[in-house]
């Protein structure tokens, strides 16, 4: 009889620990302890046994029942804890829930990237108003009295404020440069600041031309500054924006408020400089004008041009974003279309 118990104990323990699921374990439990179970079968044979052995058999049967019950309970707990919290067929390929949908305009994103870079180089950020006077938009900047940009064609003059001259003639600013003089007038040298903002031009719009667009100016005015230092500055900014080293070249250019003036090109990132339709097959893309502030601009800010010089760049933010992402229509930036704006994280 003892052998029977021993054998049942061994096989029972093995079957319990081999059970993988609660259902399997229930089956094992029934086959061991149920009405037709192995232990019951043994107990049914008690009447046939020697009466003196019956209590011992009963004791062993109860002991085994206890062992099985405990084992089954602990195995049940084991299986429960190892089981998935949801279900075995949970679909792991279903997408997760998205975070909140909001975001910054791609031009703001670019502007903040540049702000971070310039601040790391010790530049302050300057913000000024959109409406300015001819005094700051043109007179202070060495624009000839008859420069065509002053005419209605290019500048949005304000009705009722367009008859006078200089400080009396108001416009939506046609460029940012005028405000740099405002900064120079109200701060002390040396100067190192950037100035992001929206400007307005009376133009016919198409995929490459807008009436409202964003510029980003950086200006250094100091006692010593050479244009080759400016080139280093531009290279560091572009590598931040584009995430890699970008070739930069400076060539001769003309703008009334700088002397000397440069056109600053960067190597075409689409073709790597070998020439493609994006760069009109020259391998370079014009990205910004730059130069040393014209002596007359410094004078307008009460600085002595013999003492001070500097470096200025004007980055077209819209164009830079267009190049960064391959956007082919500048009008999308002011379109307020979520289908466009949500593409930029």
């Amino acid at each position, binding site marked *: 009889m003892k052998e029977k118990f021993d054998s049942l104990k061994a096989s029972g323990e093995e079957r319990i620990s081999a059970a993988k699921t609660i259902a399997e374990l229930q089956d094992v439990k029934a086959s061991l302890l149920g009405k037709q179970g192995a232990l019951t079968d043994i107990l049914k044979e008690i009447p046939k046994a020697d009466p003196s052995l019956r209590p011992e058999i009963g004791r062993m049967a109860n002991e085994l029942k206890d062992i099985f019950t405990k084992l089954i309970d602990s195995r049940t707990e084991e299986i429960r804890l190892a089981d998935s919290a949801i279900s075995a067929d949970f679909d792991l390929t279903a997408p997760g829930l998205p975070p909140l949908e909001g975001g910054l305009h791609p031009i703001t994103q670019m502007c903040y990237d540049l702000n971070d870079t310039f601040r790391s180089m010790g530049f302050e950020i300057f913000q000024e108003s959109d*409406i300015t006077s001819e005094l700051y938009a043109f007179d202070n900047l060495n624009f000839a*009295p008859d420069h065509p940009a002053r005419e209605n064609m290019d500048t949005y003059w304000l009705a009722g404020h367009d008859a006078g001259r200089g400080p009396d003639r108001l416009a939506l600013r046609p460029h940012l440069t005028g405000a740099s003089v405002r900064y120079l007038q109200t701060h002390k040298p040396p100067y190192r600041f950037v100035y992001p903002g929206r400007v307005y031009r*009376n133009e016919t719009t198409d995929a490459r031309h807008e009436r409202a667009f964003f510029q980003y100016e950086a200006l250094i005015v100091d006692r010593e500054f050479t244009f080759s230092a400016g080139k*280093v500055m531009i290279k560091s900014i572009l590598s931040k924006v584009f995430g890699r080293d970008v070739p930069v070249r400076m060539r001769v250019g003309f703008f009334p408020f700088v002397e000397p003036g440069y056109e600053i090109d960067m190597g075409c990132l689409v073709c790597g400089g070998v020439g493609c339709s994006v760069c009109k097959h020259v391998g370079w893309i014009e990205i910004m004008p730059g130069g040393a502030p014209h002596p007359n601009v410094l004078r307008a800010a009460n600085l002595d041009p013999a003492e001070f010089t500097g470096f200025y760049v004007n980055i077209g933010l819209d164009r830079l974003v267009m190049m960064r992402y391959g956007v082919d229509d500048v009008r999308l930036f002011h379109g307020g279309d979520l289908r466009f704006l949500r593409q930029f994280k």
Partner: protein
Amino acid sequence: MKLSLDWIKDYVKIPDSIEMSRLAYDLTMSTVEVENVADLGAQFSGMVVGEIKEILPHPNADRLRLCETDIGGETKEIVCGGTNLAAGMKVAVAKPGATVKWHGAGDPVVIKNAKVRGIESYGMICASSEIGLFDLFPFTEEATIVDLSAFGARPGAPLSEALELDDVILEIDNRSLTNRPDLWGHYGIAREISALYDLPLAEFTPYAPQPCDRSFTVQIDDPSRCFRYIGVEIGGLSVKQSPFKVRSRIWRVGMRPINAIVDITNYVMLAVGQPTHAFDSDNIKGHITVRRARDAEKLLLLNGRELSLSREDLVIADDEASVGLAGVMGGAKDSVLPTTDRVILEIADFEAISIRRTAARHEARTEAAIRYEKGLDPERGDIALSLSMKMFAEFFSGMKVTGFRDNYPNKLERASVDVSLDWLASRLGKRIESPDIEKMLTRLGFAVTFTNGGKDMRVAVPTWRSTGDVSLPDDIMEEVARLYGFENFEAAPIATSFTSAINQREIDMDRGIREYLAFRCGMQEIFSYPWVRGEYLDAIFPNREGMLSISAPPSPDEKYIRSSLLPGLLKSVSENLRFFGEFALFESAQVFKDGDYSSPYDKREFLPCQRRNACGVIVGASGEAGVLFRRAKGIIEWLPRYAHIESLTFAQREKPVWADAVVWLNIISNDAAVGSLALLSKKTALGCGIKNSAAAVFELDIDALKPLPSRTNKFEHLPEYPRTEYDISMLLDASVKWEDVYKAVTSKKDPENLIRGVSFIDEYRGSQIPEGKKSLTLRLIIGSLTKTLTSAEIESCAGTVIKRIKKAVGGELRN
């Protein structure tokens, strides 16, 4: 501006070692932007001279012929419909593979061997318009093919070789010429190339005027507007075609050959940049006067248009009337006619600004005006005269000068600039040796004299750079730098000068607010135009009070500029509703009002009120209006904490015109209204095209917000004893306000000091709630600072709160 390399080479011999790509690169880097370099000959590839040996009828077509054509060593049969075909004639043959335009129109097509009405044709015999040569070989009758018999080319010779069209055309970006009037024309660029590579530049032999039979006079009434006027009366001329080479060059750079006399004037302008003009001297009565026009003086143009002039216009006049608009265009009398045999050649220099104004006033930006308005050097008249007279003599063997006047009242002085060499070295970041500087400047036509023991130099500017272009030491520095090569300066690191860390609270607050709205509140930033469409103003701000406007707006309907960001935002809402049902947008930008005129910068300046605003809108289903409003309210409530600005509160003070009748609040900071928060009124929503949706809106004056000195948070010790959340639902009159409930709970001192917090959980009206009532659920945080509470103590605390609410606003407990 287009330039022919072949033409440039008349003036500077460019060695073969300088490749075209390098030339274009060097010009771009140092002088002007070369936008395009085109191989002219390439467009004639696959085209050869053919000689027609025999012409046979086409068996299937009356108008077509079969031309047995010698194309160099072999004779091919080519089907052709030309009306001027003749045996022995030399023609242009486009062989299979060449690109032509059928009948001179449409897209270019590549020629293939093809059957024409059943007969195989080897390529085609071309009309000038089909191969882009109409201006050189004009015709009036249809189906006229190019007759090349006069060129003496052998059959089979490439067409580009036969017509000497192997040339390179450089296209220069005109913007990059703005400040360099000296570069207009082939000679100007040649001079620059000679300086860049240190090559000799061809010179013009000065014209020596001979004694004349008749002497007409030129009178300049206004020397401030006309600096020089050379008039040459030339007889013995006729209106005929000019030599092919001259016509070809004019055509290559984008102009149309006309006749020999006009071609000379255009050729001279394209060569040296000096506009010249020839007019039939038989039409001139008496003498020439350069004078201001009289008010309302009429000038009849060649095209029949009549201009009405003013005192501001300068005219060329004879003894009777004005004959031309000075520096802009000639009049009907002042032209070359088919019968012309005697002309007055005008080589003049006019003041730039008045030319620009006159050209703009009469909408006539002619080739002459474009050049004059940049400011030309009057000395340039000499080379223009030299070249003109040489060409007249060459083209017309019987040419005779019968009158000559050079009236030059304002002789241009060469500018002079003093430059310190120390200053130059400091600005360049490099010391270039004095002899090298002198060499570079001399190549550009400057004359250098060293002064002050070699420490300084006096630079005399050539006349062609003395019209305002070069006047400062900085200009001289640019000349040295560009000739030395910008790329040849070593990159220098930027020096740092640390004084203090950058701390700009307003700037950081602006960014903090945008990032809060975008990232924490899930709103999308947009940009809209400052000019606002009338339909949105009608819906939002119908009376347009205090709004500024643009004198020449983008469109008549976009005259006003925004005093609020709402119109732009709601336009975007209505457009996005086509694709999205629920979304949130915001914009941060300046708004403008007619008032508060002042300027902190210059006391002469008066700028209007300009404030930076942030405006947001949350859009959703109409039934969700209350939730949308509460979301918007939450955004403003939490803004001060997250963006670290001074606190904001709400009050109803002045309802925005666009707001819902009930659901609106003003946003208050330091007791001043700094913005509004509201549901959009139904009327405004409909007016903006927002249907079946609700929109909650806020607009805030960011300039009125005060950033806290730094990131501001308050630390509290973590609780030592347990705290319990205890929710209470009350059935209250529907009109009861949360604020009153909140005050009832918090205004009196809590005697046991157990209430750690009170918050609004939910408000419900619906099927289980009687009419006129609502269910309000609030949550208490109950806990002691000194011990663990028993449940009886917690219940007693909650009971006190319920009693206080009942006493203050009535109602009963629901749960």
